[in-house]
């Protein structure tokens, strides 16, 4: 078998290294998630109890159905907690390595900033910034390509949603300057 017929090759220059050390094991994350779910179940259960989880003349009260669901959720999380402590096999598995976490953060942090920017600058400006900066910084793509792609995509979204389909997006001072 020769490789001469391979025609499409895409490189990934910032790929996470395979031998990167683990940041957390699945077992630890399992325990943390179970505890969070248990806390959620307790909070929601308490709130539903307050709303009224009993019966009155018209049938079950508003909190009846969700209250028992909270109980089920709590019980399942407790069970999950117990199995997470008991099973040693799964616990040793890697949840995420350091290199992977770095890459995930490289998407998550810009996404978080994008949401913040949307709140203050409007969605379209935020989207232009996100695409341009992400392509330049994470993808190491030429500046002009990044700017052009960001502009074309944002403009296309604006035309599709705000103009063609009448789906109105949040706007900021920039759009206001143009009268939108």
């Amino acid at each position, binding site marked *: 078998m020769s490789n001469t017929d391979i*025609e*499409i090759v895409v490189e990934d220059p910032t790929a996470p290294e395979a031998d990167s050390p683990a940041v957390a094991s699945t077992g630890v994350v399992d325990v943390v998630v179970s505890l969070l779910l248990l806390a959620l179940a307790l909070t929601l259960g308490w709130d539903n109890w307050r709303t009224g989880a009993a019966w009155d003349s018209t049938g079950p009260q*508003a909190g009846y159905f969700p209250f028992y669901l909270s109980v089920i959720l709590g019980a399942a999380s407790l069970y999950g907690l117990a199995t997470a402590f008991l099973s040693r096999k799964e616990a040793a598995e890697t949840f995420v390595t350091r290199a992977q976490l770095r*890459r995930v953060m490289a998407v998550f942090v810009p996404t978080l900033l994008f949401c913040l920017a949307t709140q203050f600058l409007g969605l379209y400006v935020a989207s232009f910034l996100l695409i341009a900066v*992400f392509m330049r910084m994470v993808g190491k793509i030429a500046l002009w390509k990044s700017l052009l792609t960001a502009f074309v*995509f944002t403009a296309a979204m604006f035309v599709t949603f705000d103009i063609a389909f009448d789906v*109105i997006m949040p706007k900021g001072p920039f759009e206001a300057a143009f009268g939108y």
Partner: protein
Amino acid sequence: MEAFGLLMHGFAVLLTWKTLLLMMVGLVLGIFVGVLPGLGGPNGVAILLPLTFTMDPTSAIVMLSCIYWGALFGGAITSILFNIPGEAWSVATTFDGYPMAQQGKAAEALTAAFTSSFIGSLVAVLLITFLAPMISSFALKFGPPEFFAVYLLTFCSFVGLGREAKHKTVISMSLGLLLAGVGMDTVSGQLRMTFGSTDLLRGINFLVAVIGLFGISEILLTMEERLALRGHAAAISLRVVLSVWKDLPKYWVTLLRSSFIGCWLGITPGGAIAASFMGYNLAKRFSKDPDSFGKGRIEGVFAPETAAHASGTSALLPMLALGIPGSGTAAILLGGLMVWGLNPGPLLFVEHKDFVWGLIASMYLGNVVGLVLVLTTVPIFASILRVPFAAVAPMIVVSCAIGAYAIQNAMFDIWLMLGFGVVGYVFKKIGIPLAPFTLALVLGNRAEDAFRLSMIGSGGDMKVFWSNGLVGSITTLAIVLLFWPVIDRVFGGVGRLLRPAKASI
């Protein structure tokens, strides 16, 4: 033959230039979504749903379902050419599809995949055409207790038959049901679980959650992987297509068996993933030459693709007939129905004939058009993978945000989407399944209403769920399925005890 006449009417609804254009747009977008890494059927449909908000329901569902067919077709392209399954159900296609591409038979493999997808879908659509109206007219007699029993059956079968750890399915499901209850209680009008927040007053929107859980979390997961890829380029010539089609009748047993498996697993919540593997394994077991599988045998492409598509399509049957989605994507389409102001359930067949039959007709037409489209445009779509992920990822994020915002025009929903993105990422990594969550979130309110209405009707007596033969048997079946793993083990144990005794006689 009433169904046939109505189907013809459906075609008449579809055959306008506008609808056909939307169909093409949907298919192209769908294939695009299916080919791109980090996106798939449910994500694509969820993200593109806002586009349809201002359309009439029939155009909207035609476009959305075409996105779905497109995504199903698109998954096969990356599996065969790049050995990267775009979707979990395409994994089995890579077993023989990629070796075929390595041997320079990529065009044959692709033709086989697309053709068998087409056949699988066609069988499932035929099933829907004739079975769905029957089931829905039967279900018209259902009252609240029957509906609650059917919901219970759906939830229980997920727990009992799912492959994941049982408590994780239960967690996922109860969480979904709980979040569905946030906001105003539909029966008494009381507020619950809002903790004084005005944003939570509206409740947690199903589509916002789905966009976060599938769209955002998938991007995070994809970034963890090494994204470099090498693959084969292929163009399909008419000669290859005809030669593959000429051999098709030889494989009729495989095609039929896979279609059957797919339809069965699609209607019950087994899913396309299980169907594709089962189709592949059975084809291998019944083959005269099982060792040749995995080395580039065309049957190994036919079997899983037919099953996956039959299952993906037949998952729409319970959604149309009963208002219960059989898969994640069907759940999202169901969410769409509610946005367009339609009430899913058996009444759909009575009240919105145009819509239902338009959708069913679009399944036929969409698959035919899709087949022609993918066969002619494979090289273009394969080259989409040249676009670096660093350019695709932020665009997907923006599309997700637009989608989440557009549903209720609320900035809060964008934050909610981000939150669900993180939740989805962590859940997927520790093995908490997301499908039961999605299903619970979309069915939660309806299940609760059905439960409370039956309780009010019976004056709080649980016996209402066993009050007649129909509801009684559904409820009992639900409970049997819930404890199926336990029952299975008990029977297995009894069987093992009996067998040596028999042998000694």
